[in-house]
């Protein structure tokens, strides 16, 4: 067992974990952040996407011990004071989710995408979201939601 201290959604957690424990399992089973989910075992689906020190990663592809001393943001840490993050609001407004299983990963990746490129074209959105699979929406409204969120933040910046 290895002792790790990880900041998750703004709170610090210290735990003894097996080195083999994946970050996603640590988040779900130890910290209780079950909003982050597992969709595959090959790191293709992106459902487990979280931010590690501010950048999107697939939390099934990171060991919990690798997150020692680092900061993790999950879907549960995005809304502030009950107010949806603009990306969450855009997903709701544009019907960018159906069953909702891919949604946490989609939103976390979409936030990262706009952090890198605040004003993406449709093609850049489509390339930037290629690591997240959805089986319900056909992606049409997801792309629309990301574009809408970009537009909204642009307006609020102006």
């Amino acid at each position, binding site marked *: 067992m290895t002792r790790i201290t990880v900041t998750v959604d703004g709170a610090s957690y210290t735990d003894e974990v*097996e080195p*083999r*424990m994946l970050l996603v399992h640590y988040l*779900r089973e130890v910290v209780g*952040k*079950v*909003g*982050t*989910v*597992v*969709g*595959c*075992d*090959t790191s*293709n*689906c992106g*459902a487990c996407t979280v931010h590690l020190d501010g950048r999107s990663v697939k939390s099934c592809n990171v060991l919990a011990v690798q997150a020692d001393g680092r900061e993790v943001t*999950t*879907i*549960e840490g*995005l*809304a502030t004071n009950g107010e*949806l993050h603009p990306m*969450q609001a855009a*997903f*709701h*407004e544009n*019907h960018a*989710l*159906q*069953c*909702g*299983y*891919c*949604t*946490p990963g989609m*939103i976390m990746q979409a936030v990262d995408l706009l952090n890198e490129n605040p004003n993406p074209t*449709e093609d850049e*959105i*489509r*390339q930037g*979201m*290629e*690591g*997240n*699979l*959805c*089986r*319900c*929406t*056909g*992606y*049409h*409204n*997801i*792309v*629309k939601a990301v574009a809408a969120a970009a537009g909204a933040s642009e307006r609020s910046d102006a």
Partner: protein
Amino acid sequence: MTAVDDRPTTEIGTARRRKEDRRLVTGRTRWTDNIQLPGMLHLAMVRSPFAHAKINGIETAEAKGAPNVIAVMTGHDIADIQGVNITAWPITPDQKSPDHLPMPLERVAHAGEIVAVVVARTAAAARDAAELVDVDYEELPAVLDLKAATTDEVLAHPDLGTNKSAFWQLDSKAGGTGGDIEEAIARAREGGIVIEREYRQQRLIPAFMEPRSTVVDPTGEQVVMWTATQAPHVLRFCIAATTGLPESKIRVIAPDVGGGFGGKLQSTPEEFITLAVARKLGKPCKYTETRSETMVSAHHGRDQWQKLTLTAEKDGTVTGLKVELLADLGAYAALVGGGVPVLGAWMFNAIYKFPAYQFNTTNYYTNKTWVDAYRGAGRPEATYAIERLMDELAAEVGVDPLEIREKNWIKHDEFPFTTVAGMTYDSGNYEAATARAKELFGYDELRAEQKRRRESGDPVQLGIGVSTFTEMCGLAPSRVLGSLNYGAGGWESASIRMLATGTVEVVTGASAHGQGHETAWSQIVADRLGVPFDSVEVLHGDTQIAPKGMDTYGSRSLVVGGEALVRAADKVIEKAKPIAAHLLEASVDDLEFSAGQFTVKGTDKGIGIGDVALATFAAHNYPEGVEPSIDADATFDPVNFSFPHGTHLCAMEVDTETGATRMRKYVCVDDIGNIINPLIVEGQVHGGLVQGIAQALWEGAEYDDQGTLVSGSFVDYTLPTTADTISFVTDHTTSPATSNSLGTKGVGEAGTIASTPAVVNAIVDAVRQFGVDDILMPCTPERVWKAIRSGGGTQDAATTPAQQAHFDEGTPNQDPAAGTTDGVVQ
């Protein structure tokens, strides 16, 4: 054409944002795998790597001794209570169905079957110990190819004596709904057109995003099972029918369920084993599968060979259609299983006026993963075949594919129309949908571009694909199901509880897993009872809360369950009326109900339904002979199916140098009857489209000759991403259904059913000039490239730009078979 909704509606037809979203976008979700119970144990399955093998022995001692392992069980250990995974639809009385034990004792019949289960205090300990279970298998010959299965040379189940499960036929002459197909074919061979083709419906994997998970708590008076299912009610029935546990002692809960697409309507070995283990140990147990396990053990979809004969007059007027299917059921007859191909029987004739028709399916077992319903179930197969054939007919006659369709389809003034398959289509307008689709698509401009590219020998050719589809939704009239030997009815139920403080609880037997029932049901009830949308709470997916239901599949929830809801609401109003009249000191006959208010005709006296609910709750003052309740239940059994239709147009670019294809534009105009929530409808269409497009372009479950699923993970089972898809153009025409009072037809499967042939037609249209008339699905670049090459249309790439793509219009026509790529990359 456009329906005028004359009710005083505010909610129906509005693009309400979904109630479900808030918890889903914030991660406040209740997936089965989230559940943790005190003392809960974790299961890991030991699965067969062999397609067909005898189990000579299973050595579990080492696994039992591993740290934190509580038990290791084989089929023998749970034989008394494990139950059976039954089929609900033996399509003929003499159908052969092998016994399907959740954990077989003697023999495995497909790779991935479970032979032992390890129970441990953690999932990791269970997985570690599962590696230590030593199974002595004796490999048996396996039948892996559908056509090979028909020869019975190797048997999937030696005890059955044959691989054939059943044969089922629908014949228009025998049924009195049309002429003799053999006569039509004989006539066409003499002086008409005969189109004979064999199409392949490849095996697909539903690939819902949430892997299946089951938690069983046996510690209470009732055994509670949380499970990622589309069909909690059907599952409870199956458990009660086969495990000895009384139905009243079982509570099945489908919490948040992450997609299904048919793939979660099964009652699965994993659910039954988790239940059996929990009962044996008396402790809560959880089993969550890995994606690799989903791929190999959750049921697959489609998998047919379709032999088709279409006959027509020289001018393109269709005269007959004969369909001969071979269907691969995999190793076992699944819940709907053998009935899936049968669901296509009424749809091959589609929107066309065939005078003679015959449908045949012969179902076979192989040593592969079992096959059952996948989005569309039987109808995509039918639509694919007929829409591909209509393009072939158009090519044969030498006219535009839309022209040949229009010549043969049912005209809008001919509804209701009884088809050659004996179905009565209640409403539709194919002309209107097609006209709108052509306009949105820019059909003529794209045809002109196609011509330009062809004439200039552009290395990138353009093809236009058409699909004017229909489907049957709203499964299903119970009597029809009964006549087909199906094991259950097709009704749906709803309850409305009028709470004292003015809010309304709606209970539906339809079990949503992404469809947005909570929102749409709220809209219907809000309108009907005149209560605020936000005051309606929709409850579902728990057999204790929603005790009656037939669950969600087959585009049935709204068409059947929505009508049950309307009827329950109407009963609430009827029950409230005498109480309202009593409170208003008026006669029942003088009361009117509108927008949530009972009013006395000709006066300003009135009372809101919420006040009636409160007064009924208090029950201090209500009329004699009336029960103090305005709650109501309704169960609706439809008398007919509904028949959505639409025109889908697809433009595909084909890179003739590599075979790569790229979608340029996709337009669909669907007629799904009246629309409750256009936002939800659009979402269903988009998602359906991509699943259908994915069958055409990307997906296929491939086995090697050992019976190992080669495309057994998301690395090899290639689901499309944002970067592989485009934004769609969607619109609607509306001919309300007459089979339910909301006029809805169902939309869950439309996109999937329609889009596959549109895409393949477009690709074939682009390369038909090279002598190609078919490409196996998925139309991989390699297959497209080889089809072009074997059609004689292209050269090796080692050409200078000036030499490229010198594909003359006059390229000699090839033998139709030469253009197919049958057998390539198998």
